[in-house]
């Protein structure tokens, strides 16, 4: 195996700014080029060009050409979500390993195609998830040690507080414009609680009830997408879970919102808050605040990329597979059906694709 792995930044319109510095700093990774499809909007080309300039790389406006380069071992796909599947499939078809931003796809059909392409190509694949965080890993370890017994109820919250202050206006279109995002904040965020519930229980989510709406923000209202919602998940073995997801305007939230997991088990319960430990600062300036001393990149993204590279080296599988990503998308799809129908909806997945990685 090569000593270093060449990564192609395949579109940089979302989140690549978070991942690229981790690649750049990684001893076993070298960024070799930026690429994207030729017929995307001009502003996307500009964003891609900025990344190419920053890292002194060629920007290739031709995906098959970029994927044919022998120095590309894997791709980091950060297009708008509606193009995720297409770019992932093209990469797999060129024999490249795939690290795909979340959500893995925006429809079950697209996700199934990704699973097929990855299976056929036999390449290493994962999608960006938050499961590498110490909070989740320690909870999983406690469950594995039997400390809380058999989990029977979970409550997961992924609420981002502080409004629309992050990202440019163009960036925000990537969240609210269905043609780009595939949905609203449930498409954007619901995957995190779902993957958490699946990872901690190893159980399939069979049914979903969801209630959501547009409560806070004009961009969501203008595009007719939800900014907040509540989702109840029914799992195998009668296990139940709740997920609260969305974006709120809450100002000055010391932890940037609620990113919490509660697991109730037959021998005890375990509560985790991604925003803790938090450090409080009382000073004339800045205003008093409390904040977590760790960054999401340090505790979640770097370990995910480290594990991905280790899997390339060792020929192992990352903790989430394409099939796991499909299971996430199928639950999100059922949640949107439930919002429309006002009923509990069945998660629709072909039998062969049901079981999540335990």
């Amino acid at each position, binding site marked *: 195996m090569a000593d270093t792995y060449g990564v192609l930044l395949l579109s940089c319109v979302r989140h690549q700014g978070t991942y690229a510095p981790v690649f750049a700093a990684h001893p076993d990774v070298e960024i070799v080029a930026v690429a994207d499809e030729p017929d995307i909007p001009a502003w996307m080309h500009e964003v891609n060009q900025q990344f190419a300039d920053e890292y002194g790389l060629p920007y290739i406006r031709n995906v098959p050409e970029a994927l044919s380069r022998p120095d590309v071992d894997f791709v980091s796909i950060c297009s708008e979500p509606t193009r995720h599947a297409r770019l992932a499939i093209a990469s797999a078809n060129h024999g490249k390993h795939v690290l795909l931003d979340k959500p893995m796809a925006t429809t079950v059909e697209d996700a199934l195609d990704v699973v097929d392409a990855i299976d056929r190509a036999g390449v290493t694949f994962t999608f960006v998830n938050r499961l590498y965080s110490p909070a989740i890993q320690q909870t999983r370890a406690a469950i594995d040690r039997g*400390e809380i017994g058999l989990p029977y109820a979970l409550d997961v919250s992924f609420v981002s507080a502080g409004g629309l202050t992050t990202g440019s206006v163009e960036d925000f279109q990537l969240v609210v414009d269905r043609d780009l995002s595939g949905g609203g904040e449930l498409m954007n965020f619901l995957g995190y609680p779902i993957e958490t519930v699946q990872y901690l229980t190893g159980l399939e989510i069979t049914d979903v009830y969801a*209630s959501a709406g547009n409560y806070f923000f004009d961009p969501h209202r203008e595009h007719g997408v939800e900014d907040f919602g509540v989702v109840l998940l029914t799992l195998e073995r009668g*296990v139940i879970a709740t997920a609260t997801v969305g974006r*709120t*305007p*809450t100002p000055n939230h010391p932890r940037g919102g609620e990113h919490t997991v509660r697991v109730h088990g037959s021998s005890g*319960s375990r509560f985790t808050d991604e925003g803790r430990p938090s450090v409080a600062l009382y000073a004339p300036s800045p205003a008093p605040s409390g904040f977590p001393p760790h960054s999401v990149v340090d505790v979640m993204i770097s370990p995910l990329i480290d594990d991905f590279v280790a899997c390339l080296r060792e020929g192992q599988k990352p903790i989430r597979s394409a099939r796991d990503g499909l299971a996430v998308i199928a639950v999100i799809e059922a949640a949107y059906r439930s919002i429309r129908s006002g009923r*509990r909806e069945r998660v629709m997945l072909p039998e062969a694709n049901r079981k999540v990685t335990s």
Partner: protein
Amino acid sequence: MTEGRFRIALLGCGSFGARHARAISALRGASLTALFDPVPTSAIELSRQFGVPAANRLQEIWDDPSIDAVVIAAPTDTHHNLTVAAASAGKHVLVEKPAALSIEQLTEMQRVCDERGVVLFVGQTLRYHPVPQAFHRSVREGVIGDPVYLNWIGNSRRPWPGGWSGWQSSRERSGGMLLHLGIHSIDLALWLLGDRPARVFAQGVTFGTPGLEFPNVVQITIRGRNGSNALLELHTNLPGNRSAFMSGRLIGTLGQTEWALNEDGVAFTDQGADLLFTGYDQSLRDELLHFIDCCSGKRSPLVTAEQALDALTVGIAAERSISIQDAVEIASILEETG
């Protein structure tokens, strides 16, 4: 009123009746005048403790013109009959939650109390607790904007006094977990969100208690007519040595109020956990004072007749949602009752 004091009879001398007796006895402007329980030993115990005569028959209480009001802290399946009888005898009524087992029962209770000109006051004591009070103040004063989401977590540890002989564990007598305990959070949701209910979905697990007729771990979500969402979580299996654990957050269009108790990996194990639930006796006192003010016409009950009916309807809808494993429209429940 004799000696200028407001005279209260206590109906029901069980665990919560005892708390009422203690709270009433501590009030300067009121006195506990009589008490009744069909189980003589319960009545005798409280009678001795508080120096108050135990009535042998309810009729003695109805016939005593010096008694201004009754506090009904009896099993839920007795609420309707006791309220109707008390109101017919001209007594004001503070009835413990849930007010009744059915919409028909509560509607009749409200009708009779209206006709007799007495107060029907539903005891949702949690509304008087400092935390929900602070939540409500954040709404009232406009600092969090329009409230759109309430998440309330209620864990209790001793929900089944009396074991299998206690009425609490009987669906027929208590209405089930969602009416008996869920009504606390349901009432809070309606009050804090200020939205009337449109749809309910609930799911549950019966944990660790073979033979219980209903789930004792429940997740309920209420969608309001204005689109608000409440997510209420109830657990009855709290390990450790505290009797209850609650936390919550209320999100509005401008900000949010939260009562956050989550700490790093707090584990509820046999070691217990750092759980807080203080101020309940104070809440009960404030509730009784409010009740007395209502009886003298100075104030009106915090739980309106409409809210009492809405809370009961949501509880019934949630029970049904669990049994049919689907969402339940409030309108469908109301249609059935006419």
